[in-house]
């Protein structure tokens, strides 16, 4: 044990503040049963700023304004129509071109492909965390197939599934499966060792372990995968509908866009894209936000 006095003498040049000696006290403790929210009230402006929907709506308005200004400045309606022209075309397309039912066709196929991909991704990653060869398999398949564009699968899809919705679903599954599996797997491997051990301590193994421990523990990563997968499902669907979508006369949004692009109705093309954007905003701000609020945010897993 070091002698304090020696150390003290060794640094005589440093000023050595010494705290004052204060009286002791004891206090009664107040009953606190009814402590409510003592937060300071917010100003109306702060309250408004706290409404996420409002802030985002404003942001959208700014984006729209920038678009409108850029389009007016470019003055090339055949390449870059204004917001107002797009909105008019959108309205027109809803009324006369059945845009809503086209969007529904796309959406329903998309949801089917998405659901299949989610199931496959969970299965594949379960395999990957359970066995080493499964891990190799996932990593190899992902790095092989993930970079392949949907168009490359076209001949194979036709060969195996013919034309129509099944092929489209196949291509969608390809679009969603790999990024989702990558995210899910990364999420699984990042689960804390202690949580893993706790789960295995309960006697959980295999699929039950994955379901009850890994999936919720990796949920933030899985959610990201779902978001990325969702976006890429759209990207792929629109590109693939050009090829597969209209075999039975029922075109989707992709077809609508393609057709109007071919006929140089650029405002309608933008209207089609705008509906993709609107659906994206809706899904992000309603579906994914709701899931987030009731899972990872409620659990304190993300800020």
């Amino acid at each position, binding site marked *: 044990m070091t002698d304090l006095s020696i150390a003290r003498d060794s640094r005589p040049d440093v000023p050595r503040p010494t705290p004052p000696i204060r009286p002791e006290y004891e206090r009664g403790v107040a009953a606190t049963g009814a402590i409510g929210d003592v937060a300071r009230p917010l100003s109306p402006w702060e309250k408004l700023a706290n409404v996420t929907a409002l802030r985002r709506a404003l942001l959208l308005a700014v984006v729209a304004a920038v678009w409108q200004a850029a389009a007016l400045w470019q003055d090339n309606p055949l390449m870059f129509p204004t917001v107002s022209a797009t909105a008019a075309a959108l309205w027109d397309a809803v009324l006369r071109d059945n845009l809503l039912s086209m969007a529904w066709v796309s959406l329903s196929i998309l949801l089917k492909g998405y659901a299949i991909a989610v199931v496959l991704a969970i299965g594949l990653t379960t395999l990957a965390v359970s066995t080493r060869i499964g891990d190799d398999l996932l990593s190899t398949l992902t790095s092989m197939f993930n970079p392949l564009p949907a168009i490359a699968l076209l001949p194979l899809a036709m060969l195996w599934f013919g034309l129509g919705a099944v092929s489209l679903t196949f291509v969608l599954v390809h679009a969603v499966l790999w990024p989702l599996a990558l995210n899910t797997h990364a999420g699984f491997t990042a689960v*804390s060792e*202690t*949580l893993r*051990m*706790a*789960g*295995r*301590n*309960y*006697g*959980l193994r295999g699929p*039950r372990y994955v379901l*009850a*421990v890994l999936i*919720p*523990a990796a*949920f933030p990563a899985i959610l990201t995968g779902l978001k990325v997968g969702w976006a890429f499902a759209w990207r792929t669907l629109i590109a693939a509908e050009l090829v597969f979508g209209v075999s039975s006369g029922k075109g989707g949004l992709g077809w609508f866009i393609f057709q109007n692009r071919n006929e140089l109705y650029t405002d309608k093309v933008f209207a089609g894209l705008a509906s993709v954007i609107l659906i994206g905003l809706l899904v992000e701000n309603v579906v994914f936000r709701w899931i987030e609020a009731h*899972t990872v945010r*409620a*659990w*304190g*897993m993300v800020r």
Partner: protein
Amino acid sequence: MNALSRAAIDPSAIAYPVDNALPDAALHRPLLDVSGVTLQYKTRDHLVTACYRVDFQLFQAERFVLLGPSGCGKSSLLKAVGGFLAPVEGAIRLNGQAVTQPGPDRMMVFQEFDQLPPWKTVKQNVMFPLLASGKAKRREAEEKALAAIAKVNLSTFADAYPHTLSGGMKQRVAIARAMAMEPDILLMDEPFAALDALTRRKMQEELLQLWDDVRFTMLFVTHSIEEALVVGSRILVLSPHPGQVKAEVNCHGFDLSSTGSPAFQSAARRIHTMLFADEVEADGVGARS
């Protein structure tokens, strides 16, 4: 109500209260047999030996304490018994069977605060192992969980998520979770380290009470000599890193009421000397293999 005010009891006068003793065979076959166990971790550029040729036996209903300086491999040993870590040398046998994987027969309370699944409320957390291991149906599990939560004084927080709890509260949930399971073997890694004196004492009481009811076998890690004497019936003293067995000491004679007694004090002093004899000269706790 508190230990300091209790009268001292001569520990040598206390023996196990033998009421419904089991047949001899069960008594004389150790439940858990750790023999010559060396544990190592391989990291990218180092090889760390956590403990070296450790042997000890646990008989049924023993409260066995691992005591040793920080980093001597206590947690590692516990993890090995839990089935999470395979020994590179030696063997761990449970009822004569080598331990190869974890299971709900050996409930573990970990040292880390993040052992509670954050997606389950306090109550769900306590129910989780009961349901997962099939030990109880939902209704029964809920009852047991609420009882255990009450024991650790967290009833008002039964529906809170772990991230809204303080460090000590989290540890108490983990303790409740393990106690609700009433397991055959309870593995506890410094479960009371984050608790204040009173809460700690209450937890110790509850634990001993449960032991007396259920007579589980317990392997308990602590760094507090006093706690070892109170909670344990036998103490394994480990050397600093890498941990080796230094001694085994009986302490079934002490309970919560003995802490003030001279016998207790002298036992504490004896273990203290055992543990830290080398340190006085070496003044170093860790040494790397």
